[in-house]
C-alpha cells in the first residue's frame, strides 16, 4: 500500500472523529481538508516511523488545538466553565438519548473530548491514544475517567456509585 493509499484509508476515521470533535459539520470538514493538505504537503518528509493513521491524527489534533486557540476571545463563555446540568433523575434504560449525548460531548473540556473520542469512538488502544496526544498513559487514563464521569453526570445517569469521598473515614 503506497503512502497515498494509506493517507486515503485514514480519512473516513478522521472524518468520523472530526465530526464528533466539532459540532459544526462544515468546521469538521474544513478541519479534515486542512489535515489532508498538510499531510500531502509533508508526505515527502514522511520517515515511515509509526502508522500513518497516528501521524494524521496528530496533524489533525494540532490543527484543532491551533483553531481553538485562535478562536479564543471570540466566544464569551468557555465550554469548560459551564456547570454540568444533570437532565433529570438517574435513569438506567438500555439506550441513551443520542441528542443528549451529542450535547454532552460538545460540552466536555476539549482535552477530555479529544482523549475520549480517540479511545471510545476510534477504538484506539491506550498506548496509541497516549502517543497521539503526546501525554503519559497514566494521564490519559485519568482524563478518560473524568470524561466518562462527566458524560455520565450530564446525561443524568450518575447511578448508584457515590461520588468519591475525600478525607473521610
Amino acid at each position: 500500500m503506497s503512502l497515498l493509499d494509506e493517507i486515503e484509508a485514514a480519512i473516513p476515521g478522521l472524518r468520523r472523529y472530526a465530526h464528533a470533535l466539532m459540532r459544526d459539520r462544515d468546521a469538521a470538514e474544513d478541519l479534515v481538508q486542512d489535515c489532508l493538505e498538510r499531510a500531502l504537503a509533508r508526505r515527502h518528509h514522511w520517515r515511515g516511523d509509526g502508522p500513518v493513521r497516528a501521524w494524521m491524527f496528530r496533524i489533525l489534533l494540532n490543527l484543532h488545538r491551533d483553531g481553538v486557540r485562535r478562536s479564543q476571545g471570540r466566544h464569551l463563555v468557555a465550554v469548560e466553565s459551564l456547570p454540568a446540568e444533570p437532565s433529570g433523575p438517574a435513569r438506567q434504560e438500555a439506550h441513551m438519548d443520542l441528542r443528549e449525548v451529542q450535547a454532552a460531548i460538545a460540552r466536555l473540556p476539549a482535552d477530555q473530548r479529544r482523549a475520549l473520542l480517540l479511545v471510545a469512538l476510534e477504538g484506539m488502544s491506550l498506548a496509541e491514544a497516549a502517543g497521539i496526544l503526546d501525554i503519559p498513559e497514566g494521564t490519559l487514563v485519568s482524563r478518560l475517567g473524568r470524561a466518562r464521569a462527566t458524560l455520565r453526570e450530564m446525561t443524568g445517569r450518575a447511578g448508584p456509585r457515590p461520588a468519591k469521598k475525600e478525607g473521610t473515614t
Partner: protein
Amino acid sequence: MTGPEPIREEDLVAFHSGGLDDAARTALAARIAADPEAQAVLAEWDRQDAALAALYGPVAEEPLPEPLRARLAAAAETPTRRRPAFALAAALALLAIGAASGWFAARSTQPDAPAFSLADSALRAHVTYVAEIAHPVEVASDQAGHLVQWLSKRLGHPVKAPDFAAEGFRLMGGRLLPGDTSPAALFMYEDDTGRRLTLHVLPEGGAENSAFQFLSSGAAQGFYWHDAGLSYAVIGDIDRDRLRAIALAAYEQLI
C-alpha cells in the same frame, strides 16, 4: 472499613479499554464479577460507546466528499516525483556537507535567493546574540505567552516556541529581528552546560516546502527549511547529528 476495597477507576478504564495484560485482566474480571457497582459503571461506559458509534459511525461510511477526493486525485497524478525544491535541497545538503570550506560553497548550485538570505541573516543573528551575556533575549521565557503573542503579531503569522526539553535545551526567550520584507523572530535555548542554540522564523511568502538544508559558517552550523509559508532555521555550535535531531523536533512540533 466494610467489604472489599472498591475497584479503582483507573483500573476500570484500563480494563474497559483493553489496556491490561492477560493476568491482570483475569484478576480484575474476578473482582468485577463480585462488584455490582463496577458492573454498572462498565455497562454505562458500553452505552456511551454505543451512543457515540450510533451518532458518528455513519460518517465513516459516507463516500469521501468531493473536495477531499479531488485533492487526493491531484496528489496521485504526481505520485513519486519530487518537487524541485526537494531535489535542490538534497543536492545542497550533500554539497554543503562535503565542502569543508563552508556553506557558501553551495552557491555554485544556484540556490534560491530568499533561502540564502534567511540562512545568512540567521547565522549573523545567531553569532551576534548567543555571545551576549547581559541581554541575550528581549523577552525572557518567564513571559513565554507574551513573547509568542507579540512575535506572532509582528510577523503577521502565528508562531510558537517549540519545546526542546527532550533534547536537553530549555527556552531562554526571544527577540524580534529585522528581515528583508517582514520582521523575523528569534527564539534562544540553552542546555545545562550553557550551550545555546537559536531558532529563526521568517514569513516567506510563496516559498515552497522543502527538505532540510544544511548550513555552516565557522563553528556555527544549522539546518533550515520552508514549510507552509514560513522559513525556519535552527543554528547552534553543537554537533550535526544532535542539531539535526533538534531541527526534526522543531519540525514535528511546528506541524
